[in-house]
């Protein structure tokens, strides 16, 4: 499979590391040959937790779990129900339906490149991919299930029992479920958009003239987009109030976790990678088009007390706005959304 091609440099790095740490990781090394992620040009190799090394068998098991509605109370909703591969693992509705048609209050985020995220969820309330699965599995308006009951259910399934034994040497348990899901999600790396080809791969023809003008606008200090949506992830992963709304009583964002007034209305700066696929926009999915988003930003925000200082009014001609949107659409990674390894 394409994603399993050996990246020799990384392989030797891992090999070198494992020679030095052979006595520490004996148990882990026994399980399966280490899987080496294919890293796009311009991206660093991500940190992988010591208690969850990547193996092909574990990734396969995680993928199976990801797409299996067995994770929800009535076996109707899988992770993939709201994180669709063809939409860069996001959804095309404001709020995705959970079990029994229940609605939460936040828009389903893209899972592209979650391997690089320092915290999970829009408010950063969860620390890592290994513990994040508890959120959808146990949230009332998502899967409304329970980890203990899920373990029981998986243990009644002969295929899963066999697969967990092969990967973890034991029957399904919370450790295996969470580690397998995290392993699969770590492989969801997207870094081959036209923008990447132009910027990191030296393909000067990858962007159109309009997209190049849009890119200049995007990285200009006048628009300030890249001050937050910068770096190889096109997010700095900070929590910001973008002044898009004036009232955050329905969802206080980061303040829901910290209880700090200064965090009201702050949400993780989302990656703009694949932004052309991840509509609708904003934390509640209330904005349908990129044009609306830009129009609102041009006004300089609502003036909410916590609004980022970087949000200031600016002017764009209709042509410039179209150039900017063309550039944003150049952030779509077609290879990522059609990769059979993810479907």
């Amino acid at each position, binding site marked *: 499979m394409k994603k399993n091609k050996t990246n020799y440099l990384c392989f030797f790095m891992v090999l070198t590391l494992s020679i030095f740490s052979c006595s520490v990781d004996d148990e882990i090394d026994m399980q399966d040959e280490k899987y080496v992620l294919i890293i796009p040009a311009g991206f660093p190799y991500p940190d992988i937790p010591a208690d969850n090394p990547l193996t092909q068998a574990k990734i396969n098991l995680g993928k199976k779990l990801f797409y299996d509605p067995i994770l929800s109370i009535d076996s109707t909703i899988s992770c993939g129900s709201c994180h669709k591969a063809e939409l860069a693992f996001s959804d095309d509705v404001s709020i995705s339906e959970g079990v029994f048609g229940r609605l939460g209050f936040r828009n389903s985020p893209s899972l592209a490149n979650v391997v690089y995220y320092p915290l999970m969820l829009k408010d950063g309330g*969860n620390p890592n991919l290994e*513990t994040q699965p508890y959120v959808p599995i146990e949230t009332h308006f998502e899967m409304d299930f329970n980890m203990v009951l899920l373990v029981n259910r998986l243990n009644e399934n002969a295929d899963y029992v066999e697969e967990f034994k092969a990967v973890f040497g034991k029957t399904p348990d919370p450790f295996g479920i969470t580690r397998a899901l995290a392993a699969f999600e770590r492989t969801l790396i997207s870094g081959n958009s036209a923008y990447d080809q132009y910027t990191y791969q030296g393909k000067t023809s990858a962007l159109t003239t309009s997209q190049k003008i849009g890119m200049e606008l995007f990285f200009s200090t006048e628009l300030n987009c890249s001050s937050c949506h910068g770096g190889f992830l096109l997010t700095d992963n900070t929590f910001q109030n973008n002044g898009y709304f004036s009232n955050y009583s329905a969802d206080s964002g980061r303040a829901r976790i910290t*209880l700090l007034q200064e965090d009201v209305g702050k949400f993780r700066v989302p990656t703009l990678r694949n932004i052309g696929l991840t509509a609708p926009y904003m934390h509640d999915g209330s904005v349908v088009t990129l044009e609306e988003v830009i129009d609102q930003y041009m006004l300089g925000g609502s003036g909410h007390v916590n609004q980022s200082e970087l949000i200031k009014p600016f002017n764009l001609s209709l042509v410039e706005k179209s150039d900017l949107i063309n550039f944003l659409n150049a952030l779509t990674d077609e290879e990522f959304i059609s990769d059979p390894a993810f479907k």
Partner: protein
Amino acid sequence: MRFKGLLLTITALFTLINFNSCKKIEGCTEEAALNYDPEAEVNVGCLYNESFPVELHMHQYVGLEELVEESTYNLGGVETKLNLVQYYISAIKLVDADGMETPAEGVYLLMSPEVEEYSLGNFPAGDYTKIMFDIGLDSVTNHGDPSLYQIGDPLGAQFPNMHWGWSFGYIFVRIDGEADVTGDGIPDNPDGLFEMHLGSDHFVATIEIDLPVAIGEGLENICHLKTQWETFFNSVDLSTDNTTHSTDNVDLANIIYGNIFEMFSPEY
């Protein structure tokens, strides 16, 4: 002569230093021992009080009645059915008259009205005057990964759930119930369904109770405590404001948090 005397003194000093640097002080180096010698460098044996297994017996009451889940009680004038009542106790210590604290190492208890007796592990024989414990968990344990514990361990995954993924940490106190919100004297379902879920580092409650307990051979070796759930609901109007997951209704969380400090007492 004076020079000779000085030489003798210096020689004696050197001999002393030399002697001291060779011979290490022998004694008991274990702080917890009865004969602990803080000067000792080489452990030549320690004496301990014999240890005995100690239990905590917790009786849970609503007024004069024992708490039974799925039963209905009058709480502040509101007929209320308590469907689930669970909470964590940790950082348990027995304290003697000198203020010396002996911790129950590694003991985390998930308390339920269905279970009255809990093991606290072994404690050295002695007369203790006080028990201290936390309702909740220390910050490191609170933000640990429940998947690292087996199912069945108090800190492992639970059904019903005692952990939040979204605001990562354990639910210290979980009360689920049905309150009479229509005023007809009958708890309402679904309209009166409520959840009081208290968690986050901010809401750890350290409880200190005067409780004389003698631990030793032929003694009962049990700490008898009781919980009064009427106190937990003090100043709460269950018919109007009855649900909190801590951060979504901080005012109510603060009220029940304050009540927790008052709800435990010795049972004689």
